[in-house]
């Protein structure tokens, strides 16, 4: 062979590698089903375990391994040092391997407590799933749980990997009956394509080569199947969607909209609608670094220009004008909760959908789904790893598709507004009609009109602090003073409101949130009527005080922290409540077995141990003057 043909051969070989496609899959199995061993074997067999990694593996096998003198392939896929020490993995890990025919990214989710959260995360970016079953155990509750989660996230292609066949004597009857049982169950979940393969991850049967131990099996090996399976998620045939991530304006002559196509194919000349506004335009160019494109398909990151000057900004959805996405502010959605702090209806959360951020509240939990039995039950909150069907309300209209139609325009993150942590995710089922029908009534006699008549601006003065801190005493004194100044006031006191408006509420966390929500709404109505509203509530949670603050305009809220050390309040114990709480007769009592979250930036901070009631009143009135409430 001459030097030039050798070079051409290398080139052709490299070109072929360069054109390989990518398959992303998730592996699911219970603890000890052999998942780590299986992934380790795929990495090993694809020859992509480097020598130095192998050396580390040999060293590790001696220390942590379960295979005696043998290599423990499971250790190849282990992760963080602390977890390795304990011999467990507790998160999603991504593994990479490549063969002559394809490149793979494996989402590896271990079968521990955080299972739902991790599996949902791993499945969200997977094209297909490999579900492991131990041949000795057959289809278990966990197998069903994995399949349910996989199908919930929209995966339609599944490999049923029946592992440890060596331990059942490579018995065909065992394999057949597991396959039969699984098909019956999974078809009901909407999994449309199931490939069952008999395996031994440990011995390597049917992983890369058909095994002489299973002459009765005529299907593909696992690797064969992974290398050739065509996963068609139908995205190309769906209507065009592209969330606008970034407006590209290098100079006054160019205005492009950058984003990733998440549905359909787009070509110059296509008519698109800009949602939620609804204006339409035609695509002029598809601009890329490498020149203009004739078309862009799902998964491509591009920049579009439009033929007319319409208003488009980050967060808008460019959508096929023939089949536009929906726009709504109320939805029914499946919510998967991922935080140790439970989801509570009524509490505001951040939401991120496409490139758009908004604020949402869960208005109702219709039911919770038990991931093991798929049974539904009533719920007032969702705790970590629970899944519920909920109705949600968003503070502005969002463009969307049902999750079943498009993962990217129907899936959203739920974000805690104080910690900024992702606390859950949602999958849109459909929009609720209500949102199109409830309109705000505009009124003629508005807030400024009320203020003119009353001679002062309206405001909420929100007293917060422990039980017995002196909130009511201070609030009463402030009201007397304001009344003397000719102000129109009203005092809402926690104890009194609980006798009437909130009679149906108890002291669980969920009820406390609702308690504050109602009072905050009432206070807002009274502010609309032009009053200075004094609210005296323990209101222990920052997020609820924040709801109250956000309901009124800036400058119309004055948070007063009545700060008394717990020991002092407990010592006073005017109502005898602390004693009862300590005796266990009052569960969820603030300061005793329920937290009080100290205000971070209250407008007024009264330390009752060093200040008299009159001092407190003076501080509040001064602040109200500063805020322009009083002239």
């Amino acid at each position, binding site marked *: 062979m001459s030097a030039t043909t050798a070079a051409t051969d290398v080139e052709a070989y490299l070109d072929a590698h360069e054109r*390989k496609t990518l398959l992303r899959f998730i592996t699911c199995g219970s603890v000890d089903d052999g998942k780590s061993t299986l992934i380790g074997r795929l990495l090993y067999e694809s020859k992509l375990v480097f020598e130095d990694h192998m050396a580390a593996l040999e060293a590790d096998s001696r220390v942590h391994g379960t295979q005696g003198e043998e290599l423990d392939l499971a250790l190849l896929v282990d992760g963080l040092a602390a977890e390795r020490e304990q011999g467990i993995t507790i998160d999603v890990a991504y593994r*990479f391997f490549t063969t002559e025919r394809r490149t793979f990214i494996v989402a590896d989710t271990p079968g521990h407590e955080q299972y739902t959260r991790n599996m949902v995360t791993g499945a969200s970016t997977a094209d297909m799933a490999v579900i492991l079953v131990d041949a000795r155990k057959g289809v278990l509750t966990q197998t069903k749980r994995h399949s349910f989660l996989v199908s919930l996230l929209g995966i339609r292609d599944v490999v049923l990997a029946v592992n440890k066949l060596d331990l059942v004597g490579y018995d065909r009857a065992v394999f057949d009956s597991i396959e039969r049982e699984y098909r019956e169950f999974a078809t009901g979940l909407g999994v449309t394509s199931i490939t069952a393969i008999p395996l031994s991850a440990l011995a390597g049967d049917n992983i890369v080569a058909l095994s002489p131990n299973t002459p009765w099996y005529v299907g593909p090996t696992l690797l064969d199947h992974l290398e050739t399976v065509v996963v068609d998620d139908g995205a190309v045939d769906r209507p065009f969607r592209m969330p606008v*991530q970034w407006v590209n304006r290098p100079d006054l002559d160019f205005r492009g909209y950058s984003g990733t196509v998440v549905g359909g194919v787009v070509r110059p000349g296509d008519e698109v609608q800009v949602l939620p506004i609804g204006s339409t335009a035609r695509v002029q160019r598809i601009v890329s670094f490498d020149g203009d494109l004739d078309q862009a398909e799902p998964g491509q990151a591009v920049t579009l220009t439009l033929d007319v000057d319409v208003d488009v900004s980050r967060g808008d959805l460019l959508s096929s004008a023939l089949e536009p996405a929906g726009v709504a502010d109320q939805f029914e959605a499946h919510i998967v909760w991922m935080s140790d702090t439970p989801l509570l209806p009524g509490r505001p959360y951040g939401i991120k959908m496409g490139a758009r951020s908004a604020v949402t509240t869960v208005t109702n939990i219709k039911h919770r789904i038990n991931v093991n039995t798929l049974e539904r039950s009533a719920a007032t909150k969702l705790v970590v790893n629970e899944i519920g069907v909920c109705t949600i309300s968003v503070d502005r209209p969002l463009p969307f598709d049902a999750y079943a139609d498009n993962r990217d325009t129907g899936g*959203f993150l739920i974000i805690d507004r104080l910690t900024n942590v992702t606390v859950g995710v949602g999958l849109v089922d459909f929009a609720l009609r209500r949102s199109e029908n409830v309109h705000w009534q505009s009124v003629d006699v508005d807030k400024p009109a009320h203020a003119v008549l009353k001679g002062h601006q309206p405001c909420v003065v929100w007293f917060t602090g422990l039980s017995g801190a002196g909130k009511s005493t201070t609030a009463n004194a402030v009201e007397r003073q304001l009344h003397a100044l000719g102000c129109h006031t009203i005092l809402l006191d926690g104890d009194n409101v609980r006798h009437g408006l909130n009679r149906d509420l108890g002291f669980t966390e969920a009820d406390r949130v609702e308690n504050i929500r109602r009072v905050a709404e009432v206070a807002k109505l009274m502010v609309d009527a032009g009053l200075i509203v004094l609210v005296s509530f323990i209101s222990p949670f920052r997020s609820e005080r924040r709801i109250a603050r956000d309901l009124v305009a800036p400058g119309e809220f004055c948070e007063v922290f009545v700060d008394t050390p717990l020991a002092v309040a407990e010592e006073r114990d005017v109502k005898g409540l602390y004693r009862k709480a300590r005796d266990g007769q009052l569960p969820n009592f603030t300061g005793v077995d329920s937290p009080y979250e100290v205000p971070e930036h209250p407008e007024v901070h009264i330390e009752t141990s060093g200040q008299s009631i009159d001092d407190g009143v003076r501080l509040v009135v001064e602040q109200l003057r500063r805020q322009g409430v009083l002239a």
Partner: protein
Amino acid sequence: MLTNLDRLEAESIHIFREAVSESERPVMMYSIGKDSSVMLHLALKAFAPSKPPFPLLHVDTTWKFRAMYEFRDRTVAEHGLELLVHQNPECIELGINPFDHGSSVHTDMWKTEGLKQALDTYRFDLAFGGARRDEERSRAKERVFSIRSAQHRWDPKAQRPELWRLYNAKKGVGESVRAFPLSNWTELDIWHYIRRERIPIVPLYLAAERPVVDRDGMLILVDDDRLPLADGEVPQLRKVRFRTLGCYPLTGAVESTADSIDAIVAEILLATSSERQGRAIDHDSSGSMEKKKQEGYF
């Protein structure tokens, strides 16, 4: 049908755009290596026809290969980019170097401390890094968007779940974000992409006759006269290349005849040792990269 490289490219571009939209003062960490070259190429693609809307930050140690400095300055000039170079003033004063202070103090002071100083000085709230998940086992679980405390620490227990193409880049006061657009790339992908896109890289990656000394099995390039030679130690010309580039006294070369990108990719397809092997810093213990990360190395 999109290929593997098409999908990776699009994902990285998506990450760049998202990060820039959700931050106020982004910056790209630029280390002049092949991953940085790929990252820069992707940034150019993500924002074309605009220029990337952020500067490049090179946290310098003064001990990089001369060829790297030349390459850096040429690249920046060619694309008309803004480059910030930070050298830890304390290190300059103390004359920190790998010979007298050891590789770990050297790296910690110049790089880890230097990076923190630079981020604090310029008040960047988001920094792009070129780390990949396939580099080391602990990285496999690192998020694409990773939050650092005001002290630049990473808490592996408080990582945010990442689903679909949605990234939560929200942060509290004083916190900052590290975004890793190359998370899902492997070393092989990087080389295939360099080949496909004809991305310029520092010539040291290609094999050539170079003067080296053999130090405990590590081939060290005699890049300038700061490298102390032992008595009787004579640099030898050998045909070598580098799989990874860092400080020249700490980066081992491998003997190779691969003097073209094609030859390198072919070599890697048949490779038997991973790229980090050439880097002295990883040799201590197998969880060491993770420790570095918790301390703010990235």
